[in-house]
């Protein structure tokens, strides 16, 4: 049997049939990035697929944009049973009023059980306003989902204090349940190239936007973030070797440059950038200690950091005891490789 015949057979079998009359289902509103479907949307469809299979419900995707009808295939292949497309020049860029009107009309007719958005700029805004308009509950920045079979409610975990722990919440009564899904939190779904379907087009009535984009904010610079509130810190120590590499790494990661007392004595940083119990304690999401030996005062000052990566040539350096990941290497040799690997 040749492959093309098999393809044909599979394609016939996998033609997705939609339920007549609709009703219920888990809906995913797609985010677009660079003319394609955003990874977070595919992840959300994957998560919705798992839940829908337990619930005995269908998964639907919604695409809004200009010239986006072709992207429907990506949603089908990721696991959607049906796709609705709103294709209109007025939807080319995110316009809250028109997007909301299209989605509110659609969901009023379809009565979804749950609606998932990506926790992106657009998804966060649409989810909150739609939830209020339709009387639904909303859980933002969901990182895990489970099912409460008694009430058919989705139980969602979201991070508290930046991920120190997670709160679990559910919306047992009101429907639809709105959720925004944190990018990268769910596994990318299996892409089934044999799945396909024909999307339904939606009517779009453009509304006059109340908020108008004037242009780029030339010359606007956000206020500097003090070290104790920085989210990512790249800190240098005596063994850092080449400070320019440390600065390049900070720029590549979008972090702030700091150091220990040794780095200050070497003249690399100002005294305001010293991380030390006697100067400033920090609590970033990520702390990179480059060539810092890590004395008691320094290590106590980074106690609140959520992830510590240490690079130091001496295997006995105390910094390794507090680090989540340690690299026993000369920073001067390993940093260029790290910069390369990050690109």
């Amino acid at each position, binding site marked *: 049997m040749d492959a093309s015949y098999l393809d044909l057979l599979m394609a016939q079998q996998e033609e997705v049939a939609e339920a007549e009359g609709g009703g219920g289902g888990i809906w995913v509103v797609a985010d677009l990035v660079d003319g394609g479907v955003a990874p977070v949307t595919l992840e959300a469809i994957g998560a919705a697929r798992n839940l829908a299979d337990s619930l005995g419900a269908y998964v639907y995707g919604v695409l809004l944009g200009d010239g986006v009808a072709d992207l429907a295939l990506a949603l089908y292949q990721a696991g959607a049973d049906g796709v609705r497309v709103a294709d209109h020049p007025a939807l080319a860029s995110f316009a*809250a*009023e028109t997007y909301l009107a299209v989605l509110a009309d659609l969901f009023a007719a379809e009565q979804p059980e749950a609606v998932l958005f990506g926790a992106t*700029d657009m998804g*966060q*805004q649409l989810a*909150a*306003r739609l*939830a*209020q*308009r339709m009387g639904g*509950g*909303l859980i*933002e*920045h969901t990182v895990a989902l489970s099912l409460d079979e008694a009430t058919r409610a989705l139980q969602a*975990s*979201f991070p*508290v*204090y930046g991920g*120190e*722990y*997670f*709160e*679990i*919440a*559910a*919306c047992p*009564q009101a429907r639809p349940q709105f959720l925004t899904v944190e990018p*990268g939190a769910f596994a990318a779904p299996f892409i089934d190239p044999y799945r396909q379907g024909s999307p339904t087009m939606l009517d779009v009535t453009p509304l006059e936007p*109340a*908020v*108008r*984009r*004037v*242009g*780029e*904010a030339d010359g*606007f610079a*956000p206020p500097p973030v003090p070290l104790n509130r920085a989210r990512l810190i790249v800190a240098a120590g005596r063994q850092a070797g080449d400070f320019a590499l440390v600065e390049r790494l900070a720029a590549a*990661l*979008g972090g702030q440059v700091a150091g220990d007392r040794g780095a200050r004595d070497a003249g690399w940083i100002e005294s305001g950038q010293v991380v030390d119990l006697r100067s400033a304690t920090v609590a970033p*999401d*990520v702390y990179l200690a480059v060539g810092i030996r890590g004395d008691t005062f320094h290590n106590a000052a980074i106690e609140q950091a*959520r*992830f*510590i*990566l240490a690079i130091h040539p001496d295997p006995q350096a105390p910094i390794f*005891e*507090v*680090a*989540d*990941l*340690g*690299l026993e*290497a000369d920073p001067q*040799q*390993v940093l260029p*490789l*790290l910069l*390369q*690997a990050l690109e």
Partner: protein
Amino acid sequence: MRVIVVLGHVLDPRGIAVNRRAGRVFINRREYILQPADRCALEAALRIKDEMPAEVVVLPRSPLPDDDVLRQALATGADRAVYLAGDGLAAADDAAMARLLAAAVERLGGADLILTGATTLDTGQGQLGLRLAEALGWPHVADAWALKTSDDRLEVVRQEGAGYAVLEAALPVMVTVAPGALEPRYPDGARLINIYRGQGEVAAALETWDAADLVDADALQPLLERRGQEFPPERERGVRASGGLEEMARSAADALRRQVRV
């Protein structure tokens, strides 16, 4: 011009310790601070007041056990604060608060601009401001970094990809302010003392409204239900990367990508 600021409080993270092994949050010091993003929103309102004649009114974003944050806002420069109390209020979630606040805004006689924080420090939820905009039927601008007002228009700077863009809207509008957008000012010591002593006009600026006068009890029913907490696995410290230099660099890059989600 009337500017309403919606603000809330949060347990000071420096006073809590999360024990992952025990699966518990230990509160060593029950001290509340203003939500950092709400504090930026208050600062934005006060900067408008510095520029032009404006009245700054403060409302709470969530049910508050006491009115400390409102007093703090008054001491910082707000003209008027309304504390919302009531029996059914304690359980209210963002959906219920949005309805209640919309009714409170109506009773205040409307406003030209409403400001609140774009996200909360603890739960990271940013829905209240947007829900309030929807309840009032106003347009919104989310995650503002800078504001400039004239009599009937507002210019807002917000992040757009890697850069920043200027948006323009007609008043009234609801704006959520990004945490860290502005360097907030501190409360005035003398005003703070007067408020707590109940002296002077600042003390008279704090009113208490009963939620039952604003909305029905049904409107305060929460939609969300807390179902517990979950703790990430305990941190395994002291792990060393293995292999040659390149392998180490790669595992470090992978770990960083997982953490930063670049």
